[in-house]
C-alpha cells in the first residue's frame, strides 16, 4: 500500500513543519543576523552603537582578522586555547569518573539507589548554583585548602581560581605552521588508510591534500601573524573549574554508562568469562568496546556543553578573571559591557564554528550509518 505510506509521510511532513519553521526562525535566522553583524563595524562608533537605528558599515572579515592577529585581542586567543584544554580535561574527567562510578554501581552494592541518587543529584542543580558553591569552596584561604587542617595537617596553599600560573606554553605565532604540518600528516594517514582499504579515489585525494598541507607549512615558515611572541598555555586556574564541572556532570555520565552496562546481555559477559577473560581483561577487552557508542554519545553532549560553558565560569570567577576566561564569557562582556556588538558577534560565530566542527562530522556519520542499517 505505497500510497498509504506516502500519505503518512506527507502527514508526517506536515506535523514536522511547525517545528521546522520555529527552528528556522529561532535558530537559523538569528544565526544569519549574528553572522551579518559580525561583518559590520557595529560598536566601533559610539554614536551608532546604541542608537535607536544603528547605522553600520560592512567591513568584511576585519573583526575576525583582529581577533586572530590583532594586538589587543590576545585575550580571545588565550580563551580559545583555554577552551581546548578545558574540553579535554572535562571530557576525560567526566568519562573516567562516570565510568568508574557506573562500574561500581553495576556491582550492585547495598544501598545502590542511595548511591545513585547522591551521584546524580548535582546534575539537578544549575551551573550558577554549582559555581557559587565551588567558588566559596575554592577560596585559597578557606574551603578545600583547609581540609587537611581538619585532621591536623598544614593547610594547602594552591591558589585555585586565582592562580596566574600557566603550563605547557607555546607561541601563537608558531600555530599556523604547526597546524599546517598537523593537517598534512593527518591527511597523509587518511590517505594511507584509504589506500589500504582499496578506496583509490579517496586515497589520491587525501594524498594530494596532504602534500598541499605540507607545502603550505613550508610556505608559511616565515609568516608572523603577530609582531612579537605571544605565549599561551594551560592556565592552572582552570583546574578549579574542571573540578566543579566534573562534580556536576559525572553523575549524568554515570547514568549513561549504567544504561549502557545494563544493556550488555548477561550471556555475553558469561561467555567472555568462560573464554578466560576476567577482571581487568573483561573490562578492557569486552565491555569497554561495547560501551563505545555510549562514550561517543557522552562526548558529544559533554563536548558541546564545555565549548559553550558560560554560567559556571561566570559564577565561579566573575567576568574579570583573565585566567579563567572562556570565549562565551568574553563574547558576553565584549557585547554588553564594551558595546562592541560586531566583535562580540564575531566571537559568537567562531564559537558556533567550533561546535559545528565537532557536531557536523558526527551527525553525518550517524545518519550515514542509519541508512546502511
Amino acid at each position, binding site marked *: 500500500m505505497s500510497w498509504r505510506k506516502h500519505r503518512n509521510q506527507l502527514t*508526517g511532513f506536515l506535523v514536522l513543519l511547525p517545528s521546522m519553521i520555529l527552528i528556522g526562525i529561532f535558530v537559523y535566522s538569528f544565526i544569519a543576523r549574528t553572522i551579518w553583524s559580525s561583518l559590520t563595524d557595529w560598536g566601533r562608533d559610539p554614536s551608532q552603537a546604541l542608537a535607536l537605528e544603528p547605522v553600520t558599515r560592512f567591513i568584511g572579515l576585519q573583526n575576525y582578522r583582529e581577533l586572530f592577529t590583532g594586538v589587543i585581542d590576545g585575550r580571545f586567543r588565550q580563551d580559545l586555547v583555554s577552551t581546548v584544554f578545558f574540553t579535554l580535561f572535562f571530557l576525560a574527567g567526566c568519562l573516567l569518573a562516570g565510568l568508574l562510578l557506573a562500574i561500581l554501581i553495576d556491582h550492585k552494592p547495598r544501598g545502590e539507589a542511595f548511591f545513585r541518587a547522591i551521584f546524580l543529584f548535582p546534575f539537578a542543580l544549575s551551573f550558577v548554583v554549582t559555581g557559587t558553591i565551588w567558588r566559596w569552596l575554592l577560596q585559597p584561604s*578557606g574551603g578545600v585548602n583547609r581540609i587537611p587542617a581538619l585532621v591536623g595537617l598544614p593547610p594547602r596553599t594552591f591558589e585555585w581560581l586565582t592562580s596566574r600560573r600557566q603550563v605547557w606554553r607555546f607561541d601563537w605565532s608558531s600555530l599556523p605552521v604547526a597546524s599546517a604540518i598537523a593537517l598534512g600528516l593527518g591527511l597523509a594517514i587518511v590517505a594511507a588508510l584509504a589506500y589500504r582499504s582499496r578506496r583509490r579515489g579517496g586515497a589520491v585525494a587525501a594524498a594530494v591534500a596532504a602534500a598541499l598541507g605540507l607545502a603550505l607549512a613550508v610556505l608559511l615558515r616565515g609568516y608572523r601573524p603577530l609582531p612579537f611572541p605571544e605565549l599561551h598555555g594551560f592556565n592552572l586556574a582552570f583546574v578549579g573549574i574542571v573540578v566543579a564541572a566534573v562534580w556536576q556532570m559525572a553523575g549524568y555520565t554515570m547514568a549513561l554508562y549504567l544504561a549502557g552496562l545494563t544493556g550488555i546481555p548477561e550471556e555475553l559477559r558469561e561467555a567472555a568469562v568462560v573464554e578466560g577473560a576476567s577482571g581487568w581483561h573483561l573490562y578492557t577487552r569486552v565491555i569497554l568496546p561495547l560501551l563505545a557508542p555510549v562514550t561517543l554519545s557522552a562526548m558529544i553532549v559533554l563536548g558541546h556543553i564545555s565549548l559553550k560553558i558560560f554560567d559556571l565560569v561566570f559564577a565561579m570567577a566573575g567576568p574579570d578573571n583573565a585566567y579563567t576566561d572562556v570565549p562565551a564569557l568574553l563574547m558576553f562582556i565584549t557585547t554588553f559591557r564594551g558595546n562592541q556588538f560586531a566583535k562580540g558577534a564575531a566571537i559568537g560565530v567562531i564559537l558556533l564554528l567550533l561546535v559545528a566542527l565537532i557536531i557536523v562530522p558526527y551527525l553525518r556519520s550517524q545518519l550515514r550509518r542509519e541508512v546502511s542499517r
Partner: protein
Amino acid sequence: MYLVLFLAVAFFLMPVYMMLVTALKEPIAIGLDTAWQPPRTWNWASFAEAWVAFQPKLRNSFVLTVTAAAASAILGSLNGYVFAKWPFPGARIAFALILFGMFIPYQAILIPLFQFIKSIGLYGSIWGLVVVHTVYGLPITTLIFRNTYVEIPDALIEASSLEGAGFFAIYRRVVFPLSLPGFVVVIIWQFTQIWNEFLFAVSLSNPESQPITVALAQLSGGEAVRWNLPMAGALLAALPTLLVYVVFGRFFVRGLLAGSVKG
C-alpha cells in the same frame, strides 16, 4: 570497593555540607577561617528570607517549566515519531538541521531573540519564555524520542497500518504506549534545564513574570554579599528539581537505556 564509594560520596556531598552550614550561619559569623565549622547558632532566618524572596516567583517558575517541558515533550514525541517511522525524502537533512539547533551558544543570539520576542508582543510575559524554551528544547527532545522510537520494530507499524490505521491512529495505539521511558528522560532533562536557566529568564521577563533564578541572583547581589542568603536560596531553589529526580530517578536510567543512549 566500598571505600571508593564512600570517598566518592564524600566528594559529592562536601559542597552540600558547606552550603548548609553557610546558610545556617549569621552573616557576621561567616568567614574564611571558620568555613568548615558548623554554626554555633542555627540561623533559620536566611531560609525564611530566601523563601520570602522566592515565593512570588515560584508560580512563574512552575508555570514556565511545566508548560514548556510538556510542550517540548509532546512536540518532540511527534517529531521523533515522524523521523523514526515515516521519513519523507529529505528527512535526514531536516533532522540534522533541527539537531544543530541544540548547539548554538545562547549569548550569540540574545539580541535578535529579544527583538523578535518583542515584535510578536510576548516580551515581559511568561508566555514569551515558554515559547523560547519550547523551541530551544525541540532539538534534544526530538533526538531522544527518535532514538527511542527507532527501536520499535517496523513490523508493529506495518501490522497496524494493514489494519487500516493512519498516521495518528498508529501513534495513539502503538507508539505512544511505548513512550514512557522517552517521556521520563525528556521531562527530567527539560525540567532541569528550564528550571535552572538564567540568561533568557533575566532578559525576557519583567518583575511580574520573573522565574526564581532571577530572584536567586538578587540574593547574591549588592556590594557586600551576605553569603548565608544565596546559599539558603540555592538550596531552596534546588528542591523541586531534586524532588523530580527522587520521584522519577529510577526511570531515568531505564529511559536512557531504552534507546536514547545509542550512539
